[in-house]
């Protein structure tokens, strides 16, 4: 890790520490204070913040799978759907408590992910991309048609999450739940990258043949990557179901899967901060359009062409993905690193 001049590590613990200097700790505590008091003053943005928090969890999972291990998945929304329905079915139809639903959602989504990830043992790149698209369609079709269990087109009502006797009905109470799990996932992802498994993932991403020659079992690690990535998706799905109180197959379209890919690219593939930046960036654009820009334009009585707003959003998203890939393939996380470096070295920035 880059440290300010004069700060040296004398122990292994110091070397491994994520928060090392006083500035780090001050910033961390400041951020925690802001987050903990958020429900008091974020108002309507709270539900958007919750949604973004859920997105961060899912994007972190996809980042482990795609960013670290290099296995492209364009079916992430499908795996999120598996988690959402698992949790909804267990809590609503079988009356199990929410934490059981949450964990099972992760496990079931992880297992389904492992199944659809199995082709990755023989194929990669475009083949895998298509296999995961296929996963998305097959999952959504099953959800749509297995009406006895999932409610089919009619969807399913989901109750508010309850921890023991505590029912988290409002957005402000759920904020702590979602925020807590998001922080845990980020912490897990950060540490995973520094373990044997994480390094094996990176080796597979950079050159899978070389990795295999070095003694990394592709079979094992690719499936682990799929399991972990989809486990996160399942957790996100479960939280989403209990946050939205209602799910149907229409909540999990292919475009969402593509957007997740866009998020981790914009944020920065293979970095821990990347998915956070990406999810916040895309989430803010999407919801400020909804809650502010479009109503403002509409009420200002400027006659916009019919396709203006609807066409513009995908155009901008598409353009952002293209531009980032061409101009800044390392994403916002890299920008952030540069910013930190510039701050640390200021005023001698070269």
């Amino acid at each position: 890790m880059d440290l300010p001049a004069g700060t040296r590590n004398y122990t292994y613990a110091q070397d491994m520490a994520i928060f090392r200097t006083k500035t780090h700790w001050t910033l961390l505590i400041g951020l925690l204070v802001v987050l903990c008091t958020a429900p008091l003053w974020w108002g309507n943005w709270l539900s958007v913040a919750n949604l973004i928090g859920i997105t961060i969890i899912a994007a972190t999972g996809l980042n482990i799978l795609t960013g670290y291990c290099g296995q492209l998945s364009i079916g992430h929304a499908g795996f999120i759907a598996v988690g959402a329905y698992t949790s909804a079915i267990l809590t609503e139809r079988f009356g199990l408590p929410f934490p059981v639903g949450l964990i099972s959602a992760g496990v079931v989504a992880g297992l389904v992910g492992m199944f659809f990830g199995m082709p990755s043992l023989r194929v990669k790149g475009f083949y895998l991309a298509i296999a995961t698209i296929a996963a998305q369609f097959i999952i959504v079709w099953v959800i749509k048609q297995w009406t006895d269990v999932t409610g089919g087109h009619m969807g399913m009502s989901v109750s508010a999450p309850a921890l023991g006797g505590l029912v988290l009905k409002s957005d402000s109470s759920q904020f702590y739940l979602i925020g807590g799990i998001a922080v845990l996932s980020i912490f897990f992802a950060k540490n995973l990258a520094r373990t044997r498994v994480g390094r094996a993932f990176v080796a597979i991403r950079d050159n899978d043949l070389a990795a295999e020659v070095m003694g990394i079992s592709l079979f094992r690690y690719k499936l682990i990557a799929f399991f972990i990535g989809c486990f996160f998706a399942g957790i996100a799905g479960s939280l989403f179901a209990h946050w939205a109180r209602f799910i149907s197959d229409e909540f999990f379209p292919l475009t969402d899967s593509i957007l997740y890919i866009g998020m981790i690219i914009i944020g920065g593939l293979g970095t821990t901060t990347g998915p956070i930046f990406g999810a916040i960036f895309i989430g803010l654009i999407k919801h400020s359009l909804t809650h502010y820009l479009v109503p403002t334009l509409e009420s200002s009585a400027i006659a916009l062409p019919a396709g203006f707003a609807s066409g513009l959003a995908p155009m901008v998203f598409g353009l952002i993905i293209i531009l980032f890939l061409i101009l800044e393939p390392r994403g916002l996380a890299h920008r952030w690193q540069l910013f930190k470096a510039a701050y640390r070295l200021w005023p001698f920035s070269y």
Partner: protein
Amino acid sequence: MAELLQFTITGLTVGMVYALIALGFVLVWKSSGVANLALGQLVLLFSWFTYGMLVQAGLPIWVGFIAVIIFAVLLGWIIERFILRPLIAQPILSLITITLGLAYFIEGLVVFVWPASVAALPRLFPVEPFHIGPAVVSQQYLWAAIISLALFGLLSLFFRYHKMGIAMRATADDQRAVQACGIPVTRIFSRSWMFACVLAAVGGVLMSSIGGITFGLVGTGLKAFSVVILGGLDSFLGAMIAGPIIGLAENLGEGYLTPLTWPGVRDVIPFIIIIIVMFVKPYGLFGEERIERI
């Protein structure tokens, strides 16, 4: 028995149209190794452009088609020059995702320019169906099948005998060696995108003259992916054979599997085939299995 004949004929003709669109994919893959995930969106864009030329601008059909072809060539050039060329030698992940970005962009562009979600092209072929025994086949599909067969023939000949075609094949094999021989690789990429866009345009016009211009055209792009996976990514012949197989599987599935499973099974059959193919024969029926070296 009459039923079976009907399913078979419908499946084969529909499959030929899938094959036509899949050819465009194979073309780009064969020469530049780029997987074009924006295939369906290109089909949609060209259908709307055709609508713009024929209906909105009121051009006569032949002039309109020439305009569409010119537009397709131009767009192919633009895509290659400004989107894919900066990414030459980047990892495959970036190449795939950039076409996803392109797909998103085109989808927005289409809504931006043509906010109406559905439209119809003028009829290109007569409505009266063609009878084969007890079964019927619409003339639209019959013509589409004939056109895609013809294009397949042309492409095969082109790749076998024409200098450019041979150069394209060589490029697919080893870019560096080709460059050392003095063949301009970037021009080859550019040409292949132009051809691919023209194929997408032809496919788009045929598809939308049959079913109208709707967002569903994007779905035909997805069908084309299953065709290339089954046939092999780098084989024209594979696409031409896999297309009708997918079409057949869909229609037979609709006829005989729906009562046993759930409705809508037809639409997931191509995806189930993909998964099976990947387990059993990952490089497709006619695809070349590449041996990797470190």
